[in-house]
């Protein structure tokens, strides 16, 4: 029977993790996402599904526990907020290099530095352009509702294991803290060691005499070897880009203008879009669900009919660069943002849209 509950976004992530057969959660308290670990500790899944929940001594420890647990072929995850995610970048780079699947949840807050505990989307560039060193990519899912917070957990693990790659759910303090109705996913069994062994020969499961060693490393000292390894990664990224790009289109069928926004900003833009539509302006909303891979092609397809695009983000202009790459100068692209933990209202988006895109055309 379908189970519906009123939950915070952070709680929905935690509950979904238990239900989708997550093997381990490792985290460190930080506002505005501490409820993820608190929910898990309160539900004590070690008694029900056998899931491990551990409070680490730092985010550096958490991400490296993922490296170890993921290396064993287990479904492991962590969650944090911006400053903590910055700390994890070293581990993420190594995990991407070693091709270990894992899930990292970033409930973003305003920065830089310690910043504020209020919501922000200023970690877009860090997430999709590679926050750590080296040529690597992290698949990034951007939920725009508490429902998606729950739904994306299983999706993230599926993608992580399909591509042996870290996946990030890039949320923010707004969705993490707000309460909405959630249809909870059904329970899924955790994978047995035997099944892991059968499906993931790379995983650390103990070597028998005649088996090949499974060494997990991101080190290839010879440049030729490292280049080959990089080509393997790049081929994988091209495949991800070709098959896993996701976005939501709202009222774009007859649109002359586009709003492009992700996550919580898209929810606010949706409201602004309705007001603009009521005023007779044909505006649609494109919401990237995967930030990497980015929906360049979907934007390109819409461009011939579009007079102007407003990219609205809770940052100083990060995703707008990717929109410009998609548009290639063929239509006007403007940016509107609030910074450092301030959240724009639908009215502000409406105002920015009118000023930046409409007034000059009058």
């Amino acid at each position: 029977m379908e189970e519906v509950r009123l939950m915070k976004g952070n709680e929905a992530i935690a509950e979904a993790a238990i239900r989708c057969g997550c093997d381990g959660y490792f985290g460190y308290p930080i506002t505005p996402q501490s409820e993820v670990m608190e929910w898990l500790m309160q539900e004590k899944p070690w008694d029900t599904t056998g899931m491990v929940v551990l409070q680490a001594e730092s985010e550096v420890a958490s991400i490296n526990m993922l490296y170890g647990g993921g290396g064993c072929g287990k479904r492991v995850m962590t969650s944090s907020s911006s400053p903590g995610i910055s700390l994890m970048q070293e581990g993420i780079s190594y995990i991407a290099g070693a091709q270990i699947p894992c899930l990292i949840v970033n409930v973003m807050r305003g920065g830089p530095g310690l910043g504020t505990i209020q919501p922000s989307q200023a970690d877009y560039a860090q997430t999709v352009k590679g926050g750590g060193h080296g040529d690597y990519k992290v698949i990034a899912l951007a939920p725009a509702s508490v429902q998606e917070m729950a739904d994306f957990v299983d999706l993230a693990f599926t993608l992580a294991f399909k591509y042996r790659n870290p996946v990030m759910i890039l949320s923010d303090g707004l969705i993490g803290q707000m309460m909405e109705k959630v249809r909870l996913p059904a329970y899924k069994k955790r994978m047995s060691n035997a099944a892991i062994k059968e499906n993931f020969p790379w995983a650390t499961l103990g070597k028998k005499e005649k088996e090949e060693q499974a060494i997990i490393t991101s080190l290839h000292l010879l440049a030729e070897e490292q280049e080959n390894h990089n080509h393997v990664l790049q081929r994988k990224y091209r495949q991800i880009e070709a098959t896993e790009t996701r976005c939501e289109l709202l009222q774009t069928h007859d649109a002359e203008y586009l709003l492009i926004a992700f996550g919580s900003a898209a929810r606010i833009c949706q409201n602004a879009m309705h007001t603009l539509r009521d005023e007779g302006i044909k505006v649609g909303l494109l919401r990237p669900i995967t930030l990497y891979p980015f929906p360049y092609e979907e934007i390109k397809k819409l461009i011939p009919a579009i007079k102007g695009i407003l990219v609205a983000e809770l940052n100083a202009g990060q995703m707008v660069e990717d929109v410009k790459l998609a548009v290639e100068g063929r239509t006007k692209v403007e940016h509107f943002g609030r910074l450092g933990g301030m959240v724009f209202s639908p009215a502000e988006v409406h105002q920015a849209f009118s000023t930046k895109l409409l007034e000059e055309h009058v």
Partner: protein
Amino acid sequence: MANGYNFKDFKSNQNVRWCPGCGDHAILRMLQSTLADIGRPQEEVVVVSGIGCSSRLPYYMNTYGFHTIHGRAPAIASGVKTARPDLMVWQISGDGDALAIGGNHFIHAIRRNIDINIILFNNQIYGLTKGQYSPTSRKGTVSKSSPFGTVEVPFRPGELALGARGQFFARTIDTDLELSKEVFKAAADHKGTSVIEVLQNCVIYNDKTHIAITDKEHKEDRTLHLEHGKKMIFGKNRDKGLIRVGFDVKVVDLGKGGFTERDVLVHNAHEKDTSLHIDLVNMEYPEFPVAMGVIRSVQEPTYDENVQLQMDAVHQTTGIKSFDDLVHSGNTWAVD
């Protein structure tokens, strides 16, 4: 004050934003008061903190301040002290900041013996993130992240500091103003890294965590105020003492079982050997009284002094005495 300073001279104009009843208020006041007694001008004092409730302290000091990165304050304080050895550097940390995420920097600052004073506010909980257990939470502590009690063994800050080759460790209680001032003063006088553990009460998320030893009724029977050169005697009636039996320390009732004051250990804070000091920092109620005051204060060369000693030694033995000597010390040749 004889030197013209008053604690108010070290108060900033900011509103203190700790909860009413928080132990931090008293610690702040005692630090301001100690600095007034010491009489260093405000511009010669720097207070560096990491992240946590206690780390808001620099805002409330009318001195230079850094509010920095979670766990990294010892590294930043080390940077300040090595860049400006003439400044007096205080580092403020909580148990989560110093011992969880910052454990690495904490032990290495101590090992280097850089002349900084670390005040460790130990309330055995993460207060700022609203109540998760910390590395000093007692085993079994029920918190938001351990609703069924923790299973982890806590750090003992004193044991960790001494294990990191710390030469100064003192302990006080937030509500014991006199003792706090005494140990802050001693830490300031000590050259090298000083660690002061303050048993601090978080009135919201871990209220009364130290109450068994800090309440007025029992404090004298359950704590031992150590003073260099004095006998380790404690109790309301000064009728209990600490003795050595083999390798162990033991509490005895004076006048009973043939034990008298003569058998009681004398505190030597300057003893280089750490064995008794480790026993003292590890004493926990109810088996032992909890040791207060300056437990260890041993003068060893600081990082600065060691660098100076090395430079002096090199100056004496090297043939390079000037810049010209240096330029001509390697492979040089004349161009005709």
